[in-house]
């Protein structure tokens, strides 16, 4: 039984590199999350930059059409949802979020023991390496807090600093209910990134955990649960990326609307 626990714990422990201070403090970094997401970010940029360079107005290839489908979906979502006028940031932001999160989530479909297998192959047996960056709260919070900064920035840009601060204390109950308004507004601001990041983190973490549990079954019956869960997970990873993107657009759209 202890080996089972060890197996699970091993699979759920990050490759932690201390920068300074003592272990368990803030100044350490998850090398697995960081390098995997960076790599996937470069994969995304590489594909889309190549696409942008080779894009043709006439006679687009099948690959171009496929990526145009994604672009169209994203820009259509922005058009439908975002009501803050023209913005140079929002479509690239939404596209980045969707593609990056999708790629990070996609790592969930790698067999859970593939990393250990390759660790053994490259001569670092037993090294801890979690392949799914979006199952790390640091990754999801980094994105959602960046979105929070954008929400605040968009609000100030659309309303002006004075009006934005005024709304912080006057909406929704009027200026005389100042403390309640402030609490409500701050709660609203804070819950947005938390719900964004925890939703994505929870889904991916749970998905990963279930893959790990399935991996504990005898090898001849793993496919019975593994195949349906993997197929279901294809839907989930796409859906979670989509939800994160759409909610970001919605929040930014809300930030530009006056009360």
């Amino acid at each position, binding site marked *: 039984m202890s080996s089972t626990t060890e197996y699970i714990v091993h699979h759920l422990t990050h490759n*932690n590199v201390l*920068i300074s201070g003592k272990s*368990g*403090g*803030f*100044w*350490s*970094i*998850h090398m697995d*999350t*960081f390098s995997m*997401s*960076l790599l996937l*970010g470069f994969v*995304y*940029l590489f594909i*889309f*930059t190549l*696409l*942008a*360079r080779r*894009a*043709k*107005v*006439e006679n687009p290839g099948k690959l171009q059409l496929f990526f*145009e489908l994604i*672009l*169209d979906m994203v*820009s259509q979502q922005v058009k439908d949802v975002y009501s803050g006028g023209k913005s*140079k*940031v929002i*479509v*690239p*932001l939404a*596209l*980045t979020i969707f593609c*990056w999160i999708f790629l990070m989530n996609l790592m969930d479909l790698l067999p859970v023991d593939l990393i250990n297998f390759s660790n053994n192959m490259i001569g670092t047996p037993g090294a801890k390496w979690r392949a799914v*960056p979006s199952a*790390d*709260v*640091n*990754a999801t*919070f*980094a*994105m959602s*807090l*960046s979105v929070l900064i954008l929400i605040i920035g968009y609000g100030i840009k659309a309303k002006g600093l004075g009006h934005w601060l005024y709304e912080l204390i006057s909406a929704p109950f009027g200026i005389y209910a100042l403390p309640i308004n402030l609490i409500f507004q701050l709660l609203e601001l804070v819950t947005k990134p938390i719900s964004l990041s925890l939703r994505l983190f929870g889904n991916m973490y749970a998905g990963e955990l279930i893959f790990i549990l399935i991996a504990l079954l005898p090898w001849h019956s793993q496919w019975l649960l593994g195949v349906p869960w993997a197929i279901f997970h294809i839907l989930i990873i796409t859906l979670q990326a989509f939800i994160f993107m759409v909610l970001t657009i919605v929040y930014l759209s809300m930030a530009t609307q006056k009360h």
Partner: protein
Amino acid sequence: MEINATLLGQAITFAILILFTMKFVWPPLNNMMEERAKRIADGLAAAEKGRHELAAAKSKIEEELRHVQLRATEIMGNAERRSDQIINEAKNCAIKETEKIHNAAMAQIEQEVTRSKEQLRMQVSDLVIKCAQQILKVEINQERHEAILASIKSEL
């Protein structure tokens, strides 16, 4: 679930990805797709314009055709009228000519008749005188009855 400096690294990566997308990915792709949308819209507009032009040309052709038909009918009518006129004129002319010829012939005949009558009268009077001379050989004195004979001659 521990928060650590990974968060900062992730945020920086995120920011870089967004900036790169804003600078190098989205604008060219967006331009390309807008260009294509514009071309499609232009093409559709051109097709629509072409259809309109075709319809206009068709109606113009029809009008022209109607006009031409009208003109043709008019020309045909004119030609018929003209030919009728020419025929009538020719007929009238022919009738006049015929009358003239007829009249001339009549006059000639009359003249001929008069001349023949004159000749005949001369011959008859000569014959009568000869007869009378034969009958009255003895009794008639040429000189005495000269006046009578002349009056008879003129009466014949």
